[in-house]
């Protein structure tokens, strides 16, 4: 028996650990360091219809126990992602979750339609929460009606289950979660980054060229954990939790709050081996908790 296996819509995960979108590129860099087949899944970098060159630099700034980023969805575009990146990833035995982004509903639909046909793409992650682009992204994720409409439109064309990535930059995240569930979402991934800012103390000007950026890293874990806990009570579709996860204990916390699997983001930059390390440590942690299977963790905090 694989004590770490988790089954979710479209995803048969050998373990519940996956790198988060935007923090792992398309896997090539980390494949120099370890076998990507060890991972439960890979959430690839957001893909848009057209090639995007992203925002001006500086694009990142360190903050207390965290970092801000405003990359701006830089990616080679749908066609190249399918023919180069996804093709290359086929050598690994790992399901891919394709993060889909765009400016207009039609863009999301077009990307979803084509990328979901790739044989290693087992699920989509609808990016309605990127805070660093002027159009699209977060504008879809802050209004429950708009979020639901987009979810339904993408669901209608996708060949694989659709997960919706929620933004924490809302008053009531539960409302958005319920709306996308009602619109047919197969799962929820949460949370994206929190909009933040850092100023250069000397000049008084923002450090990041974009002005604001998305805050990630251990600093946001309490916020993310609270939101997963809240949403888990309100929806019956599974949640892939993320937000500041850096250790095996963080994984236990998120699953206890109601996540069925987790994604590791910023921690990959700090320790590039963090995902395989956590996977290796999980069984021992289950022993320590007196649990047989990782799924026994899911939603413990609600019992």
């Amino acid at each position, binding site marked *: 028996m694989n004590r770490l296996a988790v089954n979710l819509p479209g995803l048969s995960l050998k373990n519940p650990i996956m790198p988060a979108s*935007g*923090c*792992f*590129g398309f896997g*090539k*860099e*980390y494949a*120099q*360091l370890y076998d990507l087949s060890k991972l439960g899944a890979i959430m690839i*970098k957001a893909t848009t219809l057209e*090639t995007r*060159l*992203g925002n001006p*630099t*500086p*694009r*990142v*700034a*360190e903050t*207390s*126990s*965290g*970092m801000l*980023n405003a*990359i701006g969805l*830089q990616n080679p575009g749908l066609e190249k992602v399918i023919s180069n990146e996804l093709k290359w990833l086929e050598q690994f035995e790992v399901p891919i979750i394709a993060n889909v982004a765009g400016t207009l509903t039609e863009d999301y639909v077009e990307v979803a339609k084509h990328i979901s046909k790739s044989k290693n793409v087992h699920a989509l992650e609808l990016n309605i929460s990127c805070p660093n682009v002027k159009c699209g992204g977060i504008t879809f994720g802050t209004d429950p009606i708009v979020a639901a409409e987009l979810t339904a439109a993408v669901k209608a064309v996708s060949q694989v289950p659709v997960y919706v990535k929620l933004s924490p930059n809302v008053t009531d995240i539960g409302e958005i979660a319920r709306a996308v569930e009602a619109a047919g979402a197969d799962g929820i991934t949460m949370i994206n980054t929190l909009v933040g800012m850092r100023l250069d103390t000397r000049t008084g000007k923002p450090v990041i060229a974009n002005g604001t950026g998305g805050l990630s*890293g*251990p*600093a946001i874990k309490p916020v993310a954990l609270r939101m997963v806990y809240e949403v888990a009570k309100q929806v019956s579709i599974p949640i892939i939790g993320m937000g500041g996860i*850096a250790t095996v204990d963080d994984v236990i916390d998120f699953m206890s709050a109601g996540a069925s699997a987790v994604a590791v983001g*910023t921690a*990959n*930059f*700090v*320790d*590039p*081996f963090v995902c395989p390390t956590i996977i290796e440590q999980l069984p021992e942690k289950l022993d320590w908790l007196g649990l047989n299977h990782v799924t026994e963790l899911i939603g413990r905090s609600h019992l």
Partner: protein
Amino acid sequence: MIRQERMRVVKIKEIAHNIFEMILSGQLVHDMKSPGQFVHIRVSDSYEPLLRRPISIASIDRDKSEFTIIYRAEGRGTTLLSLKSIGQEVDVLGPLGNGFPVHEAIAGETVLLVGGGIGVPPLYELSKKLVEKGVKPIHILGFQTKEVVFYEEEFLELGETHIVTVDGTSGHQGFVTTVLADLKPDFTTYFTCGPTAMLVAMENMFPDKKGFLSFEERMGCGLGACFACVCRTTEQTAVDYVKVCSDGPVFPAGVVQI
């Protein structure tokens, strides 16, 4: 191969005002390929500060499995790094990036090595490698002021060396370009690392020469995955952008839009 290793501090010394020289020991040294590569250092085992610090390799001693970094203790990270003591371990990821192409210089040729401030360190290992193969280096090293000048003697041992300070307290007064304008050196190739303004000045001064520039940009992962250190390229290149960490940090003159 890129490794993550806990390396031991063998030596740490303040060699100029707030400028530290640290020697680290470990197996990672044997994977270092070219001068100008860098390492990504985690200065603390906690989340404060969170990100690694990219620091260039100043000198490599394969026989002893040691390498040297020289850095300015300025921000939170480098200040913490300057407080390490001999025997302590430091989490090092590397070697990263592509360094200076030593093979571009041929024995008997004269080449120009131009460094500015904390951009000077990678030129030291480069100069050693060039001298080893019979290339004659001329070093032009610019600093703000006398108290931050370092490695003057080390560079002198390898060849002709000109120090220049902005306030004139050591060597010539002015910028590296001031010295170059006076000196009018005869050379085949230039190698440079320093502030962007200096890189721009070098490209403008020697538009017809073969040159290699080492860039600096804020980094996240250091591996090429996060797209933080992306630079636009000039129209002469086939790609729209390059990543300083994994495509660079060294690029031929004319590639990066500066």
